[in-house]
């Protein structure tokens, strides 16, 4: 594992934090959009297993993680103070596919990993920018990092469940409207019901659909076989090696609750 120094760990919204980790540029250079790292919170045994997070952005020698507090690991992470050292391992998993003419659909904290994609697609070399970003959350307050996202000049469509900002309703409604007009490749990350819906839309509008999936991970490097996603063929894919981004048509989404 590498050691990184926490340079900030600030609340962005209810239960959402932005963590900055200082680490050698050499290490950070190896990270590609779509990949993730795992963070060992501290030396105590509770929580025991490092938790996986996407890379939200990289600036010089600072790695940004955007995360939501959902359980004891993220709770403990949110209590870490500036100056403390944390251990991490990465890059893990596969980068996003190299696609053109696509839209992004993000639900809630699912936005986290796309910041880095935007950063890296500015020069249109290894990655291409999306045509549009669809970003939904429960309320206005949970739509985070908008100034950062907006600075890439890509149209962002917002929705909230309560209508406190943007379209009132599900982000997938907006995506469907877009696909009707203009069928395009979709790259989506968010809660399970959203992913299911996106997969359906992908099928309906016959567009290639990529889903960024989640499971509980242990090793993150293919040792434990713990992170399986059932495939349509009947075998299992491993999120930490074959993912986290999968072609929707290859996955048996029935296992999602």
């Amino acid at each position: 594992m590498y050691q990184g120094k926490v340079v900030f760990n600030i609340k962005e919204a209810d239960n959402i934090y932005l963590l900055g980790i200082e680490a050698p540029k050499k290490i950070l250079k190896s990270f590609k959009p779509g990949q993730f790292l795992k963070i060992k919170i501290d030396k105590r045994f509770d929580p025991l297993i490092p938790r996986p997070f996407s890379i939200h952005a990289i600036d010089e020698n600072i790695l940004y993680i955007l995360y939501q507090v959902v359980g004891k690991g993220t709770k403990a992470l949110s209590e870490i103070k500036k100056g403390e050292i944390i251990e991490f391992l990465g890059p893990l998993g596969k980068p996003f596919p190299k696609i053109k003419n696509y839209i992004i659909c993000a639900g809630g904290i699912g936005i986290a990993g796309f910041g880095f994609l935007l950063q890296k697609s500015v020069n249109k070399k290894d990655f291409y920018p999306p045509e549009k970003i669809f970003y939904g959350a429960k309320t206005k307050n949970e739509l985070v990092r908008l100034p950062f996202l907006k600075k890439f000049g890509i149209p962002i469509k917002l929705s909230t469940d309560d209508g406190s900002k943007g379209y009132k309703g599900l982000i997938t409604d907006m995506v469907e409207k877009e696909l009707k007009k203009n069928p395009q490749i979709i790259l989506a990350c968010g809660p399970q019901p959203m992913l299911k819906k996106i997969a359906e839309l992908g099928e309906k509008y016959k567009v290639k659909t990529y889903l960024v999936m989640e499971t509980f991970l242990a090793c993150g490097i293919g040792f434990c076989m713990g992170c399986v996603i059932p495939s349509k063929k009947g075998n299992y894919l491993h999120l930490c090696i074959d993912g986290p981004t999968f072609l929707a048509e290859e996955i048996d989404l029935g296992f999602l609750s």
Partner: protein
Amino acid sequence: MDFSVNLGLLKLKTPLMLASGTWGLGENLDKFFSLKEIRENIGALVTKGISINPRKGNPPPRLFETPCGLINFIGVENPGIKEFKKSFLPKIKKFGIPVIVNLYGEKIEEFLELAKDLKKEKVAGLELNISCPNVEKGGIYFSYDPKIVSELVRKVRKVWERFLAVKLSPVGPVYEIAEICEKSGADAIVVANTYPALAVISLKPFKILQGGLSGPAIKPLTLRLVYEISKKIKIPVIGCGGIISGKDALEYLLSGAKAFQIGTTNLIDPRSAIKIMRELKEFKNGLCDKSDTC
């Protein structure tokens, strides 16, 4: 400091072994260690459980974290013996450390077939996983049935002349099984596999995960088994359960283990072996400083 250990038919450069299922099939050792590090720190590599046919393993979820522990329900996902020999063994042989193949069978015949199949291969030893259901006996675990274990070990012993270890389950008639393994010709026993455990993963709808518990939570339980069993038998006991630090490893060695395996800690940090061996050396040095008797 000389850390080499003699396990009868097997000599290890260090007492540290990588436990089954926590380094995959070992083919990626050199991704996380230099060759020098591998040879100086890792006494032996135990592969993931290997069965005759490929096994795709259990449906998700396969993992759940509990207080200071991890439940796994992998279901021995592995490519099968043929693919293992073809695509993995050539790679892991090159690391220059003893390779011990962990065998998974659901009938005595399966274990025998696997053992025979490996006779011509350059593997240092076998580890029999007896925490498997015995389909010939209605699915009751091998480890609950001393007679079956005796038959299993004797039969494998007949066809396998190199190092042969049996990996015990920590539940069931453990002491009896340990003694029977010794009598039946095993060279060593590994104490122990994971503990049968249950986690509630959803309250509503009520969903559970049953699997094996590993990690620091179980250390006090397995340490006791190692202590008690190593008083009862003469063949080496290899301790395995919850080792995270060099101090943990030393506790096992002082409690009667001749060598030890590390499992869950590899999942936390793939370079755990290096850290543990470094700490073990420091601890041993510290202890030796104060007297001559160590």
